[in-house]
């Protein structure tokens, strides 16, 4: 096994493609315009990695009927995915996405998810310590369900670092800020879909992003990715700070899943021996390539190579 993907709060994704989606009206969806698939950021990253031929274990908390459907679908996705979830009594959440390609709008309804008991957390930690020793790289991505402390990414990273594993995080600010107090990963990618905050502050100027990226690296993170105005990123490494921008127009209704593709492609690059800025460039190219079409299918390695020509990486510090 190459990777342990941690998805603490997995979800069953329901996608509806409704052109001219209207509130306060009955919106009919033909069956071919709706999809159901396993989701949650960690699960998405795992599914993408399996498409690139990477074998991995997915872990997290799963419960109820929705959890049963999710794991059944995940097993169908690829024989390269091994599942090892901790079962809980509460029901796993569902995420609903409505894509309107006529008005170029994306509406998301994400349920908060289940409550995880302290007993289940204890089972998970014991399981995690055994599983982590079987892989090279750990990816922890997405939200934390109720009952799990915001510092949990840090607790898991502390265990992973005991066995000298490379650790990736993608999460929102509250999780990153609290978890950093316990342990630092090698790579941090900010998920800024719900909040623009970075370390408790809203940044506006480019200089503020550059200074913050520099601070992350100074504190021990090898690579930090801070999303800027949705389609740009500031990248901090020990060698400096870069600003990434696309050379192509990005359709905002096609942005769904681009962050997961970014993370998965970085993990792929790391497993293939790339480091730091090259890893980030590969991830960003994959994310931009993903915005060229609708759907969950990740771009091929060939498409990512092609999109390396459609990104600008400008050194800013």
């Amino acid at each position, binding site marked *: 096994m190459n990777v342990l993907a941690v998805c603490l709060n997995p979800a069953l994704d329901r996608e509806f493609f409704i052109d001219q989606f209207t509130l306060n009206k009955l919106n009919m969806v033909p069956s071919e315009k709706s999809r159901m698939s396993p989701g949650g950021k960690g699960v998405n990253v795992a599914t993408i990695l399996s498409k690139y031929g990477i074998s991995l274990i997915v872990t997290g908390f799963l419960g109820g009927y929705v959890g049963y459907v999710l794991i059944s679908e995940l097993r169908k996705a690829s024989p390269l995915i091994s599942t090892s979830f901790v*079962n809980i009594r509460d029901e796993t959440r569902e995420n609903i996405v409505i894509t309107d390609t006529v008005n170029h709008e994306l509406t998301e309804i994400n349920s908060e998810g289940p409550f995880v008991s302290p007993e289940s957390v204890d089972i998970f930690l014991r399981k995690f310590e055994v599983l982590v020793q*079987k892989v090279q790289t750990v990816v922890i991505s997405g939200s934390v369900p109720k009952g799990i402390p915001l510092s949990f990414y840090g607790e898991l990273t502390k265990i992973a670092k005991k066995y000298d594993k490379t650790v990736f995080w993608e999460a929102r600010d509250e999780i990153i800020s609290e978890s950093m107090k316990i342990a630092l990963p090698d790579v941090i990618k900010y998920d800024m879909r719900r909040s623009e905050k970075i370390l408790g502050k809203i940044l506006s100027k480019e200089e503020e992003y550059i200074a913050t990226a520099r601070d992350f690296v100074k504190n021990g993170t090898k690579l930090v990715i801070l999303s800027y105005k949705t389609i740009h990123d500031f990248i901090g490494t020990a060698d400096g700070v870069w600003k990434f921008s696309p050379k192509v127009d990005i359709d905002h209704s096609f942005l769904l899943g681009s962050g997961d593709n970014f993370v998965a492609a970085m993990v792929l690059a790391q497993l293939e021996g790339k480091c730091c800025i090259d890893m980030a460039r590969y991830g960003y190219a994959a994310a931009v390539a993903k915005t060229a079409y609708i759907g969950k299918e990740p771009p091929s390695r060939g498409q990512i190579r092609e999109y390396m020509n459609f990104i600008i990486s400008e050194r800013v510090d």
Partner: protein
Amino acid sequence: MEGVKVSDIMTHDLTFVFENDTVEQVIELLDMTRLSGVPVVDSDLRVVGFIGEDDIIRACLPSYFTLLQTAAFLPDTNLFIKNLKDISHEPIIKYATKSVFTVKSSDTLLFVADTIMRKGYKLIPVVDDNNVLMGVVSRLSILKESARREMAVTDK
């Protein structure tokens, strides 16, 4: 079914319990996962046992029950309930089958089907050369694969 390997039909699921997990925790897990049994592993994920519903039930019955093979000699169900309560905090390894039948992903489906028929197993752990758990193969997965294969022949 010749040529079909365990790797073609196995479920890549690592649902397991540790040796020191309690009987109560295992019952809870079996209930939530709808599984009839799970592999017991050590801290290196090596399979050291298998615990099924049957093993737990057997542990709650008086030892003479195995010889008599009938519940007619049980004084009442309270004895069963009392025994279950008594062992609920015991480590599961105490009641697990230690000599576990395991298969490798390269083993043939025919070999697994034959063992399932002869021994009555419902779920068999799949391990690597170091006895590390890789997944499981179930009776149902064998049936599903067999049904699929038969249909392929019929189609010709």
